[in-house]
């Protein structure tokens, strides 16, 4: 198993997918206690990461369009609301 990233480095999808995996492993039951405790702590951190992302996320906007010379250019999208 590759060295696990800290939850803060994970995207929502990565964090949630790992969390689901941990729940499944823990629910299957036969883990050594030490390992079960480790999984639990990791799972808590992942759930925290997911919640944090959901609460704090702000939609990021970009625009991809040809510039004056027809070259596709990637810019932040500013919208007048």
């Amino acid at each position: 198993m590759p060295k696990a990233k800290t939850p803060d480095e994970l995207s929502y999808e990565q964090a949630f997918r790992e969390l689901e995996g941990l729940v499944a492993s823990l629910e299957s039951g036969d883990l050594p206690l030490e390992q079960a405790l480790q999984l639990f702590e990791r799972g808590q951190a992942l759930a925290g990461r997911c919640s944090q992302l959901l609460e704090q996320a702000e939609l990021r906007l970009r625009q991809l369009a040809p510039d004056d010379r027809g070259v596709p250019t990637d810019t932040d999208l500013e919208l007048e609301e």
Partner: protein
Amino acid sequence: MSQLSFFGMQPRLWTVADLTRYVRQLLEGDYRLQDVWVAGELSNLSRPGSGHLYFTLKDGEASLRCVMWRTEAMRQRFSPREGDAVEVHGRVSVYEAGGQYQLYADAVRLAGEGAVYQEFLRLKARLEAEGLFDEARKRPLIPLPARIGVVTSRAGAALHDVLHVLRRRYPLAEVVLAPTPVQGAEAPAGIIAAIELLNQRVHPDVILLVRGGGSIEDLAAFNDEAVARAVVASAAAVVSGVGHETDFTIVDFVADRRAPTPSAAAEVATPDGAELRLAVDQAARSLAASLRRRLLQARADLRSRQVALRMASPRAQMANARQRVDDLTRRALAAVRTGTALRRAAVQGLIQTLRAVGPEAVLARGFAVVQLSPSGTVVRSTRQVRSGSHLTVRVHDGSFPAVADDGGE
């Protein structure tokens, strides 16, 4: 004669009402007149307070009175104006009170729309035959898209609607807009370029191809074959959200998912943040519950092993031995005690027996023992006694002396 014949063979005299009704029945009886499309120029349009629509269709040679009832008029997507070249659908009948035959219209469209629609049907049939509408060909949507491409006009309400939904529902994503005109001559090429640009440069998880509703001309780019093929060729799944519910376009049929509006397209392409929050909470609860179960199980295992350990320890075995000694001692003492009691009971029994067979019991019943005094010989026969013999008489509670006063026989 002519007078006679005039009175004798009278031809039928119609009332106006009868004749008019007869003509009406003739027209209504001809099925070809009950389902017609008529092309012409719209004139004398009036829409009184009743909401019904009255107009005349004209071409160079003739004119036709038309009426469209309010309920039908309200259902039309297109609102006809004076002078429009239109095609009207309806049935032919007679307005008896006005003595006029007219077209009772139920649909009106701009002239040429019919041809456009036929072309639409032909293209649809062709692409369908190619299998481009097959559900099996379509890509499933990614449940948690990280990057969402949007192909639409920068100015339209569609972009605003999409961003509004995404902000509220799924702000985790990054949105990349590839702006393009979505109606007019440049729209098809613009849409195709935008889809290709997104796929090449951004690799979005999903592309929303959206615009607001409009007439069939407004939506022409979304019925364009090249645009449809660009949607099919897109590396990212495409969700279409064009116009309102009733507008089906070719793009809707080839898109991986079709949504009725731009907002709905944004919803179809993303999970609901509230549900994600619930799922995270649920996972956290499952995690805690599993750990609790695992701890309870560990505790139960520990307890059962502690018991086993105690049973196996030397101390436990010594205690066991001690207990066995105690036990044996207790049993030995009990045995001894039981033996003594038995013996005591036996002696008691003997004493009872002795008492029963001894003289005391007989004496108690009133007999007496007579002995010669002082020898103590028990008198069993009269011959042992003489006159003046000294005797001792024993009764049950003691004895007393006596003298025989006369000899025996």
